[in-house]
């Protein structure tokens, strides 16, 4: 009816990317509770209906779902989260149909340039907006994280041939060398590779002590085991991975090799912010999830909730929630602080983008008597000083 706002929420709940969507059920539950009384916007109280959909990790299905929500359900705003495979097709569908779309959790460079935007040229996107970490944040985080312990500053990098990998290689690697690190890059590898002897041989020969990679979990597991087998891991002091090692299961499946792997988190339960939509704090969110699911908290909890925060803040701010133009405008000028930190579209590096924090973290053995095998601790906070640092970085081979 006309007094109802319809919001689409698309994420990978099942399929190979299911790890990202695993916690969405809980987050959406919280959101719906908070919205039960309706949403105040433009001096009127609206019923809110969140239509959540699962892409089954299939990009083409993601596009289909977006179309369906737009054409048949008549949504007023699209929210989409986690990985290019989920976000890009949905964003494209929204751009095509002229429906405002907000997304998070993928490097914004892959979102912006990956969808065909050209550097320098004005933004080709009218309807789609993205917030969250980008290469710049990774640079800050890595530099501060890697200076925490003494190394020879030789970094062996394994960047795959995909949008993240290419963006990182193009922008991060040069910056790192400027920051005084020697980059040893054997070149892009294809995901699905199961033998890395060539790269490992090179790293050993160069005597790298820091390792950095943006692989999907299976690739990393294959590489890291082989690295151990070939005696590479013994010389590695910092193993810094992104995209894999986000969730406990990735690391647990590595066994002992997983302990002390460093990672970077786009959210951590130690984040000091409250959800603008639900009012819960980081620890409340994490504990609540562990209580209700019996599983260990993951950084996705905060990310998904922050998307809902930002989305509904935009709706509140819009002059007319039923006008797509107005909602899009509200997003483009959105300034708020979600459970995952600051979102500000007025001062982004490019239009349609608001960069967000990503903090240095490490997977360590959990203290005796704790529910789970591993503990996920924050080791630095360069991109958001408000986040408390809870532990000291331990050398991987130490």
């Amino acid at each position, binding site marked *: 009816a006309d007094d109802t706002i319809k919001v689409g929420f698309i994420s990978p709940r099942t399929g190979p990317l299911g790890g990202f969507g695993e916690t969405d059920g809980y987050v959406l539950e919280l959101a719906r509770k908070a919205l039960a009384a309706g949403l105040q916007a433009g001096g009127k109280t609206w019923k809110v209906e969140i239509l959540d959909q699962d892409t089954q990790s299939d990009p083409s299905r993601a596009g289909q779902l977006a179309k369906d929500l737009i054409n048949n359900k008549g949504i007023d705003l699209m929210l989409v989260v986690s990985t290019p495979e989920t976000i890009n097709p949905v964003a494209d*569908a929204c751009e095509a*149909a002229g429906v405002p779309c907000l997304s998070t959790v993928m490097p914004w460079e892959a979102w912006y340039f*990956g969808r065909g935007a050209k550097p320098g040229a004005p933004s080709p996107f009218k309807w789609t907006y993205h917030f969250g970490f980008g290469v710049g944040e990774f640079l800050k985080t890595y530099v501060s994280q890697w200076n925490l312990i003494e190394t020879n500053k030789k970094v062996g990098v394994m960047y*795959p041939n995909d949008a993240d990998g290419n963006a990182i290689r193009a922008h991060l690697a040069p910056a790192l060398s400027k920051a005084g690190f020697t980059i040893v890059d054997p070149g892009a590898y*294809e*995901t699905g590779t199961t033998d890395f002897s060539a790269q490992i041989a090179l790293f050993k020969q160069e005597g790298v002590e820091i390792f950095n990679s943006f692989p999907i979990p299976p690739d990393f597991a294959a590489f890291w085991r082989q690295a151990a087998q070939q005696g590479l891991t013994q010389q590695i002091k910092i193993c810094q991975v992104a995209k894999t090692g986000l969730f406990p299961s990735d690391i647990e499946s590595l066994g002992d090799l997983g302990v002390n792997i460093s990672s970077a988190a786009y959210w951590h339960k130690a984040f000091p912010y409250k959800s603008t939509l639900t009012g819960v704090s980081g620890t409340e969110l994490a504990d609540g999830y562990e209580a209700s699911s019996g599983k260990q908290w993951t950084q996705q909890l905060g990310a998904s909730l922050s998307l809902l925060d930002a989305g509904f803040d935009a709706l509140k701010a819009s002059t007319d929630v039923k006008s797509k133009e107005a909602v899009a405008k509200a997003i483009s000028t959105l300034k708020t602080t979600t459970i995952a930190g600051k979102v500000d579209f007025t001062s982004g590096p490019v239009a349609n983008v608001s960069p967000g924090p990503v903090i240095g973290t490490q997977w360590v053995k959990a203290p005796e008597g704790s529910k789970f095998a591993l503990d996920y601790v924050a080791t630095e906070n360069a991109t958001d000083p408000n986040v408390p640092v809870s532990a000291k970085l331990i050398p991987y081979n130490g």
Partner: protein
Amino acid sequence: MTLLSNDISIERWTRSSRLMLAAMAAAIAVLALAPAFLGAGMIDRMTALFIYVILAAMWNALAGFGGLVSVGQQVFFGLGAYFTIRFADAGLNPFVALLVAAIVTGALSIPLSLFMLRLKGGEFAIGMWVVAELVHLLVNLDRLIQGETGTSLISLNVYDSATRRAIIYWLSLVAMTALLGTLFTLMRSRAGAAMQAIRDNEDAATSVGVRVIATKRLLFVLAAFGIAVAGGLWLAAATTFQPKTYFSVQWTAYMIFMVLVGGIGKFEGAILGAILFFVIETIFGGTGVWYLIGLGATAVLFSLYLPHGLWGEIERRFGLQLLPIGYRLTLPDLLKGKR
């Protein structure tokens, strides 16, 4: 029907088949007007349906008529989409790019056929799959594609969504009609008879003058072109090109499913199969994993209990043949008895 000396005659059309053609023509005419009265959602779904029909018909042509079972047809689907992106990026109008892409893919399939068609049975099926994987990896080397992340056909953004939707719908309808028409005429031609002969016994076909490789190539290239068109249309509808998606063996899985359920080797079967697949997807697509499990189970059951598919069953039960490609000899009674 052709009348020969001593009033023996050969029939190719039945009354029901004439009616069928008329009906189909009418149906297509109606469909052409659909954008005027159907909602955006329906139009998008119908577009998908047309693309499914193309895929089913093309795989059926290859496996059902040519006896060439391929697990790698996704290679043409992917190439159709890839070249569309490529040419569009080079500045071509996206829809022109789509057509050019299909033609290029068809052309590429000719040298490919020189090798692949020498393979038989399992070797061909697997060989095609490997080719698909290989091409996928090679496409990934193209910087424009951004590896597995892929990129988008943003040059479509110049059209406003309504026009864009309608154009894609009509293109798909035209493509489907044209491809089905071509295939049907082909199957009724001498080449068509030759293809069935090859499927049944290649040596015998050669020894009565059928040029086997050349005939197979005809089907191979047609299928390549048709599937490439489908790939381009799918891209136009979805905007996003992700190599993993377009080169996924899942497309071939769908083709096999549709053809198997509809009735392999039956012209009508492929169409029926596509419609069924479309309906199932529309109804159960939301149920996620169980939908896929259902698809798989259906495929298994059909292969076990209805190997000739629904249409095969209909034909057997009611002797119904709506789009006959065969020949019937009718004898004057005096000859009938004698043998």
